[in-house]
């Protein structure tokens, strides 16, 4: 049955109907309805509450100096990992680029040769770039990677001064991992 044939009453109501004046306000309890004493009591209760808050310690963190601890699984900036012998893990399979929902990863693979061995596999990533302005930090690249070459680290303060600096190149991504992430990954092995 087409929608227009429905009588207008049958349509679902607006989920939160707009409120008129004093509508939806909880009714005052009986007995202490409109007495001035109750109103003054309410006012002083408010003042007492705020005064109590005044003398309790602040709950805020002073951000640049103090930071909240990141979860173990926090997804911040990316790192490319190496094997213990110094070879790059990335084998240039481009699965990360394929998994990326926003297409921010660019991988150009090249063949490994005997003289120039960069990764243990057949190929390696000649170019590996991530556009951090596009990245949504979903972590699919990490899941897609067959050799656990790419991981997302805990850093989230990624601001910079020009758009070009947000194209993270391979050199930048190959920076050593923060020790705690390294330890976590080692423990998983």
């Amino acid at each position, binding site marked *: 049955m087409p929608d227009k044939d429905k009588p207008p009453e049958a349509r679902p109501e607006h989920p939160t109907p707009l409120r008129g004046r004093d509508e939806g306000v909880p009714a005052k309890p009986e007995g202490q309805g409109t007495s001035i004493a109750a109103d003054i009591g309410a*006012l002083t209760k*408010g*003042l007492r*509450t*705020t*005064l109590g*808050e*005044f*003398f*309790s*310690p*602040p*709950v*805020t963190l*002073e951000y640049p100096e103090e930071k909240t601890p990141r979860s173990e699984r926090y997804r911040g900036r990316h790192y490319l990992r190496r094997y213990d012998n110094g070879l790059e893990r990335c084998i240039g399979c481009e699965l990360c680029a394929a998994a990326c929902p926003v297409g921010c990863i660019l991988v150009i693979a090249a063949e490994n040769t005997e003289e120039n061995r960069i990764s243990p596999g057949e190929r390696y990533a000649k170019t590996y770039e991530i556009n951090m302005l596009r990245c949504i930090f979903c972590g699919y690249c990490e899941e897609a990677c067959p050799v656990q070459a790419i991981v997302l680290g805990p850093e989230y303060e990624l601001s910079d001064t020009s758009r070009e600096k947000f194209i993270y190149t391979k050199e930048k991504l190959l920076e050593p991992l923060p020790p705690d992430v390294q330890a976590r990954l080692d423990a998983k092995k």
Partner: protein
Amino acid sequence: MSDIYSNPIGHWVVIAVAMTLLLFVVLTATAYTVWFERVALGRIQRRPGPNRVGPFGLMQLAADGVKLAFKESFVPEKTDKVLYVAAPAIAVAAAFLAWAVIPIGLWYNVQYWIADVNVGILVVFAVSALNVYAIVIGGYASNNKYSLLGGLRSAAQLISYEMSLGLALVPTFMIVGSLRLRDIVEYTVHWGPYVGPIPLIILTPVGFIIYLISAVAETNRAPFDLPEAEQELIGGFLTEYSGLKFVMYYLAEYVNMITVSALAALLFFGGWFLWVVPPVFAFLLKVVLFLFLYIWLRGTFPRLRYDMLMRLGWKVLLPLAMLNVIVTAIILVAVEG
């Protein structure tokens, strides 16, 4: 010390020095009132408040002032240029003029600085009445609907609350028998063995409460800050103002706050008398307590709706103030015969 004032040349020297000094004192006090408000409001919301510039953020206002002073001083298109520039100046002038008659209890014999006129409190009212102009003209000259609405709202608010404010103080004048602020502070009672000044709040508690509410409304502070209600009027009459012109309005608001607190301390809490505390510190302490009350109220209560504001002013405070005058008069006649 008192003969300084009677000597004609010394009189003018004292006045000239006092004016300059008072200007700086009030300016500094204003700056630290803003700091105090931000910190206290922060503490009420369980955050530290400004603490970056200088120790405890005490230099925050200097930083803010420099920032605002170096902003481009522009006048928007299609405004009434002359009035647009004049309005903030009126605000500041009106705010500072009141301090000409406020005795600040400097030391034991020097209780007033600039003027000790016998209609002191009326002068304060007269000058604060000029505040309306700053707001209405600022709103009108901005040529902006929100500014105009903010200006008109505030004009209505100020006029309605000025009446209650004035009437709330009448019982004090009737008891003391003088409008000179110094006489009111030095009002002496002979109660049995006790002879000396008392805080007049004991004699006029109702007047004090009416004064308190009206004063908050009169200075456009929360919960009566309808003229600038950000959520509905995008800043009211301040919408089109920026840079130094904005600073002037801001300054005027805080100077008015201090003025009203100082008046409350003088009229109801015995001004500079506080046990053995030196006068100027006693006075300062009382003013700071009132400023804290202001901030406390701002941190606690939500803004009133416009019709509530008008109802409170005209139907509750004004009749109450009149009743207070009549009852005080009856009691005075009964006591004094």
